[in-house]
Structure formats: C-alpha cells, structure tokens
C-alpha cells in the first residue's frame, strides 16, 4: 500500500508559523529570564512577530491554490483576512502594554496567548477542510477563554471567563456534529474536493455537483449545525447569550480584540462556507440565515438601549453589527462578499478604538465603565471625549465616518440581490441603535461632572494614546476616502472560490 505524503509548502501557513514561533519564543524567554523588571521586551517581541506575519501574508497575495494536502486554501480572501487580523492584533498589543502595565498584571502569557489566538484565527480564514475549521476555532477559543479571565483577582473576570468557556465549548460541539454529518453525507470533510489525493477524494463542492438532487438532506442539516456553531462565535442571536457577560468581564483590550478579530475570523469561515462552497444550496440556507440576521439586528439594537454599562452596551451593539454583516452574506454576490469584508475590517478598527478609550478611562481595575461614569467627560479630557464621540458616531453609521460607508456597501449588495425588505429592517435597527449612541454622547457633553468623582485618566502610556489616535485617524480617513480599502476587498474576492 503506497501512502500519499502531501507536499509541504510553507508559504500558505507561513504567517501562522511566524506567530506560533514568536509566541513560544516569548513564553520560553520570559520563563527563563524570570520575574522582575519592566517587561518592555514582551510587546516589542510581539510587534516583531506580528510584523513578520504581515510581511509573509503579503507575500502570499496573488497566489491561488490549495496546499498541505488540500487542507489550506491560499487565496486573496485568506490574505485579506490575515493582514486585517494582524493589524487588529498589533493595535491590541500596543494597547495591552499600557493597560497591563498600569494594572500591574503584565505577563508573558498574555502576549503568548494573544499570538496563539491570532494564529488560530488566520488558520480559520484559509481552512479548506472542515476539521481545519474546527481545530482553528478551538485554537483561538481556548486562548480567548484564558484571556477573558486574565484579571485573575477580578470576580467579574472569572465569572465571564467561565460562562464564555461553558457556552463556547457547548457551541463547538454543534459545529463538530455538523462536520460529522457532512462526513456522513459525502465521506470526507474537504470543502473543495481534490485532484491530488486520488479519484475517490471528493469534497463538498464536488459532491454538490455529482450527487443527485435528492441526496442533500443530510448536508442541509449539517449546514444548519455549522451555521449554529459559527453563529455562536460571531455572536448572532439567538446564540448571543455569552456576549454581554464576556465583553463586560474581559479586560478592555481583550474585549476590543474579541469584537474585532473573533468576528472577522468567524465570518471568514462562514463566508467561505456559505457564499463559495455551499452556494448551490443557497435556497436551503438562506431562510435560516435571514432569520438569524433579522433577529440579530433587532435584538442587538433594542437590548442595547437599556444597558447601563458602556462595555455591555457596546457588546449589544457588536451583536447588531454582526446582523449587518449577515445581510452582505445573504446577498452572496461579489459585492456582498467584498462589502462584508470591508464592513468587518472597518468595524474592527472602530470598535478597537472605542474599547481603547474605555481601557484608558476605566482606570485601574476598570472601576469606571458605566455610562454614568462618563458624565461630563468632555470638560475633563476633551481629546478622549472627542475620540470616543467619533467612534460612536461611526458605529451609528453617521456620514463622513467609515461606519456609514460600510453600511452603504453591505446594504447596497443586499438591494442588488433583491432583499430590499431586509435592508429596511437594517435601517430601522440602525435608527434604534443611533438612539443609544446619542444617549452616551448626551451624558458626555450635556451633563455636569459628578461631585467627588475620581479623575478620569490615571497613568496610561503613550502607546494607548497612539492606538486611539491611529484608530480615530483611520475612522475619519476611510470615511472620506474609502476607495483603496474597498478596492482591496474587491480584489480579495476575485480569487475567491478557488479550489482545484
């Protein structure tokens, strides 16, 4: 019996390898050096690892093939997502440095886990086999469970980590069951189906062509389970229960990272699955996804109105934003895919900026995160208030910010695909959402500062300021001059449904 040993080409997963090696290096070096000292080397090493990773991801731009025994798809879509993820991670690392240093919990494990998480998310973007999706998902989920509970002395932190863990593990079993059903239906877990591993090897894409029309039932059930499993990760209603708790209890930089990067990674897998692989089955999955999208937009926006805690409020807002991305997926045309990518990239930058402001203003141990704590903020630190205003306006989708452009693109794609009524729901949800963003603004500008309140900012580094500045700059610049990024996203979808 001859065994086919797969050809090993490292270019496709080089960005991930760089991150894993970097993370191990950071962990081991720090363990050997030991305690004490100002741990400035940690964030510099992380920055270098991420920089190398971005460089390698850019190298893969333009190639379009399956590698590693058809486990890894190296295409423009994956490259776009990987570069965006690494940028999110860079901002998070810089912000975390200030945050952890202030709170006195700076440890190598934080950076190591963050890099592992990013590596897992990148794998998710280029997974061309369902078992790869599962492994990538678990890689970043396990890292995130620990990161959420990284403030070990905080009771809320521990509690949110436990809830996130239990619900996350619960949801990934559904994803796994979906994978098992796919395997039961077609005898393999490959997405594309291969030319390399012999005649018998088929994937979902080839099976959809070759199977008779009546044989899809098990595959349809499997699709539903996959959507449920991934829907948990992107915080879609009704699988959103963990989101507010995890977002509130996690350290603010981690919350920002989860809102930006976890969503991007989860949606990357969803987009590849639904809009490329399972495109022929769209008549079957569309009703389900439309239901999820409508619920997500409406529930996220409505429940955000009653929140008192700013982090919880932004958690519900992130749920609503997941719904807007779903409209792009439902359109499942080129504009829908590129629009979703654009939306996720720009939403990520904005929400990272918003949580950076909260991280700075929350003070040591994050004591000040309720909306009331931000009363009269403008009169105390006008610059931070201005930045937060900008981010909130962008999240609300006000023109001249990037949030407006993003909504325009995904809604445009949905209209093009004939889902105007879905866009009407989306616009109504945005109108509700605008209300609670305005509520925060009113508190910041119109109300007097509380008597005897702690000073807003206490000891944060220049790095955090830089992150806020960069995010604010990107929010405005892309809001006025968006064509380069949209162009980039559009070229990312051209290579899309690659496959042998």
């Amino acid at each position, binding site marked *: 019996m001859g065994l086919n040993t797969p050809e090993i080409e490292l270019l496709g997963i080089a960005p991930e390898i760089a991150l894993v090696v970097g993370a191990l290096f950071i962990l081991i070096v720090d363990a050997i050096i030991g305690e004490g000292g100002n741990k400035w080397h940690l964030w510099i090493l992380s920055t270098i690892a991420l920089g190398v990773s971005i460089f390698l991801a850019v190298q893969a731009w333009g190639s379009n093939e399956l590698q590693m025994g058809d486990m890894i798809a190296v295409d423009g879509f994956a490259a776009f997502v990987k570069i965006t993820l690494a940028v999110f991670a860079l901002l998070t690392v810089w912000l975390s440095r200030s945050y952890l240093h202030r709170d006195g919990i700076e440890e190598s494990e934080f950076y190591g886990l963050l890099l592992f998480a990013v590596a897992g998310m990148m794998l998710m973007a280029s997974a061309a086999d369902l*078992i790869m999706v*599962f*492994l990538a998902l*678990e890689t970043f989920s*396990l890292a995130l*469970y*620990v990161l959420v*509970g990284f403030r*070990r002395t905080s*009771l*809320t932190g*521990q*509690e*949110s*980590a*436990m*809830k996130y*863990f*239990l619900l996350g*593990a*619960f949801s990934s*079993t559904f994803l*796994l*069951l979906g*994978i*098992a*059903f796919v*395997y*039961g239906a077609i*005898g*393999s*877990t490959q997405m594309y189906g291969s030319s390399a591993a012999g005649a*018998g090897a088929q994937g979902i894409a080839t099976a959809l062509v070759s199977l008779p029309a009546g044989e899809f039932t098990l595959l349809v059930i499997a699709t539903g389970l996959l959507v449920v499993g991934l829907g948990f990760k992107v915080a879609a209603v009704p699988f959103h*229960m963990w989101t*507010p*708790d995890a977002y*509130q*209890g996690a350290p603010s930089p981690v919350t920002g990272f989860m809102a930006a990067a976890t969503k991007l990674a989860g949606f990357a897998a969803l987009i590849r699955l639904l809009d490329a692989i399972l495109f022929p089955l769209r008549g079957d999955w569309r009703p389900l996804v439309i239901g999820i999208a409508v619920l997500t937009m409406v529930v996220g926006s409505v429940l955000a109105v009653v929140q008192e805690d700013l982090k919880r409020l932004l958690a519900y807002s992130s749920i609503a934003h997941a719904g807007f991305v779903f409209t792009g997926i439902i359109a499942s045309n080129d504009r829908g895919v590129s629009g979703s990518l654009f939306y996720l990239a720009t939403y990520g930058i904005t929400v990272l900026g918003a949580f950076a402001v909260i991280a700075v203003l929350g003070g040591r141990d994050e004591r000040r995160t309720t909306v009331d704590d931000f009363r009269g903020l403008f009169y105390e630190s006008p610059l931070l208030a201005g930045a937060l205003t900008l981010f909130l306006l962008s999240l609300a989708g006000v023109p001249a910010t990037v949030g407006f452009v993003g909504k325009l693109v995904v809604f445009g794609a949905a209209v093009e695909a004939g889902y105007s009524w879905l866009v009407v729901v989306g616009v109504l949800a945005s109108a509700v959402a605008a209300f609670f963003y305005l509520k925060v603004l009113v508190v910041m500008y119109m109300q007097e500062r509380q008597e005897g309140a702690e000073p807003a900012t206490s000891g944060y580094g220049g790095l955090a300021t830089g992150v806020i500045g960069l995010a604010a700059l990107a929010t405005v610049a892309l809001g006025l001059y968006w064509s380069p990024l949209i162009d980039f996203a559009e070229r990312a979808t051209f290579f899309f449904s690659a496959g042998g």
Partner: protein
Amino acid sequence: MTEVSPGYFLALAGLLFTIGVVGVLVRRNAIVIFMFIELMLNAVNLFFVTFARMQGNLQGQVLVFFVLVVAAAEVVVGLALILLIARRRASLDVDKVRLLKW
C-alpha cells in the same frame, strides 16, 4: 457473527448527544455541565466512527484523534477556570455566580 446495523450506532450516538444537550440546559453545576459537554463530544466521536464504517474509509477514525486531543485541551483550560472560581467562592452553581446578569 451477525452484523449489527450502523443505524443502531447512529441511534445511540443521537441519543447520547441529545442527553448531553438536555443535561447542559437543565443542570446548574459548572462541573456537571462540563461533563455533559464531554458526553456530547463523545457522541460526535461515535458518529464519526460509525460514518467511517458506512463510508468505508478511515478518515472518520482519524478525526476522532483530533477531537480527543481538543477535548483534553478543553478539559485542562475549563477545569483551571472552574478551579479558580471554586477557590474564591464556595459555590459552583452557575445561577449563584451572578455578578453579571446571566
């Protein structure tokens, strides 16, 4: 030797998975919930192995390895988190742990 139809294995796996789901939704102790999640994972393993036999290839059995390893990693991370909470408070009841609204 009489051949046992794969249908029975599928039925058993489905039953185990459903018991797991119901258990997660009904029980309130974090450790017990986690045990039910493990039950669900193993039910999926049974699905994989049975489908592997029906499909006549080995891929499903290989996948079980990966599921096992991931499950072990989950156990380690999960127990560490649960232990951290247990040392700070007496209760592991997920309903009593409610600083955050559930």
